[in-house]
């Protein structure tokens, strides 16, 4: 007998992909979507389902692989975070025109808040731009159900379907009862049809018309029609909600005793909104409140400004996560159920800010960069190492790969003004592969003088230790091909490329200085590969370590605490000195180089 299992939203989505006969699943990691693909790999193995599961170099490539699986007749899915959809938007826009054969799901996880993203952008909105139908789950269980409906919708209309969970779905856990695996005997069978798969503008015009016609029929598709939760409710003001906001609304309406009074509809398919739903709701009610996040996607499709209340009318905040407290006060005001208390918006004292782990090789790299180029400009990128902010060694963070393009931008701007400045960019290994490479080639062509430090910890650390193209391991632990970063950099035409170990601190500082000197005198980029494994990843476990210790020579100047910011270095008020927290110290051996008085030493080698 099957038992209920506690599953993360992302695991529930993964389970549903395997259960529904998905054959090709691809992804590039990004919070909150990362666990989808790693879970597919694990569940596929457990259930012995025949699938191809892979991490791709970026979301665009991931999309193209999965989409083409669908063109060949197999159910396929690609997953990513919302900003990853920007990277994949080029194939997305086109694939909606050409359509699919096997069901194809584009899973793009939004992050209202944002909790772990550069923006709060709304994938549903991009879905609307692309003219792709969008499904929005309210919980892990609902996400699992919508994977099945998504494949059904995709195959019924030969169109990609977007599934847009949010952080609160992806990273919620719920009791889930696993079901049966749909064993399919579908085989790859690509049917050539150049006027469709290689359509020129003439044919694209036809495809666009067909797409518009599909969308108007999808706006009548029964399985994804809005849920009317309480037909017994008799009020003249209705609430329409979608995604997690719908889950909050359902709970709050019950708790406030409004269940019998306020008609409540849950939109499952925010785009295209069901046409009959829009006309009925606008006909039947005096006012309609729309609760959704982050953008007013549903609201924009309900075009009666006299009746509709939402983000555009000012009833609902336009930015930030729609927390249940906010929804409660909006509902109270809208229904006039109770006098509205002014919302207490006191988030309390700020929590502890995130920091690089104790012993993280990135901390050593950043400290070294500041030492080698104290007055430099430091463009950086997306990953754990964004936290180099705390060391004053990260000046810009724009998007994946921008550390390289921005170095060139700074150089060209300063060059025009005749000003000298050292530019040292940092980028992670995975991010370098993802989007840094084209920028580096451009910098070689344009002779951009800067130093690129590739922080190579052999893993995609921030999102949960996924492999990079240099790892040689796939999503399920299988052996894969390997691309060597150093060889790649040299092949781009970079004249200086050397590998160093950040924790070998003085030598690493000297290496960054050498790279700066090369760049200045040779008029092009110099690359330093800071190679040292992530302190959190498995490959680094079991090293023989020696811990740091503070001697009596410590003057209590706090330089190490303020400039190095290792969580293992504390300030002991009693003694007025720095103190090493042995439970945290990873024994990287870098802090002795940070203390100007030499008051931090390494204890003799001992095993943990």
């Amino acid at each position, binding site marked *: 007998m099957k038992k209920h*299992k506690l599953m993360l939203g992302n695991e529930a989505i993964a389970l549903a992909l395997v259960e529904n006969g998905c054959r090709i699943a691809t992804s590039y990691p990004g919070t909150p979507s*990362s666990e989808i693909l790693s879970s597919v790999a694990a569940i596929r193995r457990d259930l012995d389902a025949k699938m191809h599961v892979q991490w791709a170099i970026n979301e665009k490539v991931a999309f193209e692989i999965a989409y083409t699986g669908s063109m060949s007749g197999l159910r396929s899915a690609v997953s990513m975070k919302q900003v990853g959809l920007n990277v994949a938007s080029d194939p997305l826009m086109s694939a909606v025109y050409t359509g699919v054969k096997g069901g194809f799901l584009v899973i793009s996880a939004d992050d209202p808040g944002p909790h*772990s993203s550069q923006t709060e952008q709304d994938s549903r909105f991009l879905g609307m731009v692309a003219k792709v139908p969008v499904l929005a789950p*309210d919980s892990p269980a609902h996400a699992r159900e919508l994977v099945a409906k998504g494949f059904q919708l995709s195959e019924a209309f030969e169109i990609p379907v977007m599934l847009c969970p949010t952080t609160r779905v992806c990273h919620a856990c719920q009791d889930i009862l696993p079901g049966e695996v749909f064993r399919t005997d579908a085989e790859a069978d690509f049917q050539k049809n150049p006027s469709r798969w290689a359509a020129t503008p003439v044919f694209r015009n036809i495809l666009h018309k067909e797409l518009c016609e599909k969308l108007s029929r999808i706006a009548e598709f029964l399985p994804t029609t809005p849920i009317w939760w*309480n037909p017994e409710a008799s009020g003249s003001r209705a609430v329409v909600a979608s995604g997690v906001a719908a889950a909050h609304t359902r*709970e709050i309406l019950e708790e406030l005793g409004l269940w019998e009074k306020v008609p409540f509809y849950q939109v499952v398919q925010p785009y295209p909104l069901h046409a009959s739903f829009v006309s009925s709701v606008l006909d039947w009610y005096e006012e309609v409140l729309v609760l959704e996040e982050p953008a007013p996607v549903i609201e924009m499709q309900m075009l009666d400004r006299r009746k509709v209340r939402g983000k555009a009318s000012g009833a609902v905040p336009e930015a930030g996560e729609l927390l249940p407290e906010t929804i409660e006060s909006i509902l109270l005001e809208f229904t006039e159920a109770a006098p509205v208390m002014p919302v207490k918006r006191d988030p309390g*004292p700020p929590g502890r800010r995130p920091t690089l*782990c104790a012993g993280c090789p990135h901390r050593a790299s950043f400290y070294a960069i500041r030492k080698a180029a104290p007055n430099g400009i430091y463009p950086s990128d997306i990953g*754990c190492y964004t936290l180099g902010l705390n060391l004053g060694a990260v000046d810009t963070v724009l998007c994946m790969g921008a550390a390289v393009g921005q170095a060139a931008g700074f150089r060209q701007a300063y060059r025009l003004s005749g000003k000298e400045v050292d530019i040292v960019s940092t980028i992670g290994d995975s991010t370098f592969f993802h989007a840094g490479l084209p920028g580096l080639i451009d910098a070689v062509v344009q002779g951009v003088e800067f130093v690129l430090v590739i922080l190579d910890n052999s893993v995609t650390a921030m999102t*949960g230790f996924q492999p990079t193209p240099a790892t040689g391991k796939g999503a399920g632990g299988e052996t894969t091909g390997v691309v060597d970063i150093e060889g790649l950099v040299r092949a781009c035409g970079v004249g200086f490329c050397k590998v160093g170990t950040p924790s070998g601190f003085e030598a690493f500082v000297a290496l960054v200085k050498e790279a700066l000197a090369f760049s200045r005198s040779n008029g092009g980029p110099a690359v330093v590969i800071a190679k040292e494994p992530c302190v959190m990843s498995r490959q680094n476990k079991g090293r023989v370590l020696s811990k740091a210790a503070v001697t009596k020579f410590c003057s209590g100047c706090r330089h190490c605490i303020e400039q190095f910011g290792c969580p293992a270095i504390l300030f002991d008020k009693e003694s007025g000195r720095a103190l090493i927290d042995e439970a945290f110290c990873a024994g990287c051996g870098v802090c002795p180089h940070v203390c100007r008085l030499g008051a931090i030493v390494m204890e003799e080698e001992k095993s943990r």
Partner: protein
Amino acid sequence: MSCEQAQRPSSMRQQILVSGVGGQGVLFVSRLLAEAAIGQGSSVLTSEIHGMAQRGGTVVSHLKVGGFAGPLIREGRADGLIVLKEENLGPHARFLAHSGWVVVNSKSTASEAGLGLFAVDAEGLAKKSGYARGTNLVILGFFISKLGDVLGKDRIFCGEDSLRKAIEKRFTNNRSALEESIAAFDLGIRYGKE
């Protein structure tokens, strides 16, 4: 439009906030509690935060047992807080209901049952007993024994046994980790009974 029956609340509903900093095992604790709930046949929802926040920053997990639809606890609605890092008590106290209880990992604070405040130096206990990594399980053991005694077992959604089973399930394939975890859990239970 389809019409579905709304989920009605079941008898035992409980909302607990688990709070700490990255690396302490906040998600581990909330998942064990959720597993215990499932083991007893309850429905459960939790909400976690991953990614950037887990690098030593504040981490919080919402746990809702029994017939809830939304994954988050509203301010003033939590039945209890389990605080793994005392400094989080200030920021997260606003979630607590008037009649709520707090279990806090603290070197200094003394328990005040009348106020619903139960303190344990879980870190100190764990270190002294050689389970430095078991701080979170010491708190969990303390939580289940202390609250069961003070509030009455029927006011906590799960019992000691279902938590123990959840721990055992978690470490099925790692005997030494299981032994150490159960030892830390028992340590907390003993301390809660003192």
